[in-house]
Structure formats: structure tokens, C-alpha cells
């Protein structure tokens, strides 16, 4: 798997959300994703960025978006990193309707459904990394 030119964006406030979405969109376009794949990818990334704004320490939170290629296909990947408190129970956090903040609880499970690849790594007090990937159909 090789990466193209990555794009990087800091997530510091709600004002950064449209910048994050713009970056996700432009990289997805470069990867040649169709409208449906692109819309799903941008929406999934937007949900993850919102989670970061809601739960994480905003110092050092960012997303890196790059093109990805395997022998068979090409696509786009977004890696969201934050240095927040971490997620205590990953399985619970991935359940539909579970939320510690009183919100709808669809961010993580919804983003997982919208993407082809999804990984969630978290360490208490150190932070969380969410990786999303979408392949070109």
C-alpha cells in the first residue's frame, strides 16, 4: 500500500469542521471516488471530527488524509488523532445509541457503517486514533 500527497488539518474548534470536510472531499475527489462514496466518506469524517470536538483535548487534535493504493484498488484514508482522555469501553462506544454526552450516539457506529475500513484505537489518558478508508468502486 502506498500513500499519495497527504493533507493535514488541525481540529481546534467547530469552525474547523468545514475545513476538515473540504480536505476530505478534495482528497476523495483526487482518489476518483464517485458521488455516493465521496458523500459517505465526508459524512463519516465529519462525525469523527465532531466526536473529537465533543470529547477530546483539542491541543494536538488533527486529521491526515491521504490517497491509498493496493494492487487491486485505490482509495482514500483519513486518520484522526487526538490526545484526549481516551475511550473507556470501545465496544460500548461502537454501539448504536450509546452516548456519554446525551447525544444521539450515532457518530462512531455510523461512521463505521459508511466506510469500507474502520479502526478505533484508544488508550486511557493518552488519546484516540480513528482511521477511516473508502475504496473507489
Amino acid at each position: 500500500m502506498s500513500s499519495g500527497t497527504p493533507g493535514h488539518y488541525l481540529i481546534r474548534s467547530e469552525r474547523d469542521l468545514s475545513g476538515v470536510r473540504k480536505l476530505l472531499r478534495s482528497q476523495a475527489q483526487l482518489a476518483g471516488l464517485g458521488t455516493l462514496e465521496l458523500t459517505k466518506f465526508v459524512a463519516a469524517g465529519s462525525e469523527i471530527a465532531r466526536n473529537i470536538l465533543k470529547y477530546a483535548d483539542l491541543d494536538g487534535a488533527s486529521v491526515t488524509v491521504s490517497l491509498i493504493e493496493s494492487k487491486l484498488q485505490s482509495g482514500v484514508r483519513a486518520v484522526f488523532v487526538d490526545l484526549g482522555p481516551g475511550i473507556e469501553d470501545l465496544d460500548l462506544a461502537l454501539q448504536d445509541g450509546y452516548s456519554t454526552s446525551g447525544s444521539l450516539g450515532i457518530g462512531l457506529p455510523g461512521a463505521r457503517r459508511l466506510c469500507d475500513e474502520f479502526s478505533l484505537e484508544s488508550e486511557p489518558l493518552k488519546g484516540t486514533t480513528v482511521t477511516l478508508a473508502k475504496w473507489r468502486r
Partner: protein
Amino acid sequence: MPHEIVPIIRVGENLLVSLQGDMDDEAVIRLEDQITREVERTRAKGTLIDVSGLAVVDSFIAQVIARIVAMVGLLGSEAVIVGIQPAVAITLVELGIGMEQIHTALNAGKGMELLKRLQT
């Protein structure tokens, strides 16, 4: 004009609101204010909200649109969402947002027909 987030035009006794591009959260929230003021000021019977130009709809934006529909309803105007793009419809359902309580129509023309039926 601090309250003008989007153009709102009058079509007969109804309002047509067109949402465009990628709206940031602040703009989406201020939209609630702009639309409810305009409904009150014009005493519109119906309000069509055209989302066909909206680049992305995530859970927050979908929730605010649902809230606007509820607010417009409380003011006595029927709200109809029109122009949801197929990719947006699929994305919202996969996210787990059904928008079941909301009147929707394929486009502005169909939305106007629906408004007429709702108003009789």
C-alpha cells in the same frame, strides 16, 4: 445583514429556502433564527426547504433541519424538505437518521404540490 444566511424567496403564500454548499455549524444555527423570523414576518402558510445544493449532511445538520421543521410547524406553517440527493439519502439512512416525521418531496415542484395538499 447579520441574520441573512440564505436567500428566502416568497412564492405565493409560501416561502422557498435554498441551502447551498457546505454550511458551518454557526450558519446552520443562525438559519433557525432567519427562517422562523421570516415565517413570522410573512405569515407564510408553507415553507419549502430545498437541500439539493447542500454538499454534505451529517447527523448535526440533519438534526438542525429536523428542528427547523418542528419550529416552522409550531408557527403554524407546513414545512417540506425537498431535493435530498440520493447519495445524501443513503448516507443519512446508513448513519441511522431516518427523518420519518418529516414531509419530504423529490423536488421543489413536487414539494409545492404536497404543500397544497397539506393546506387543504
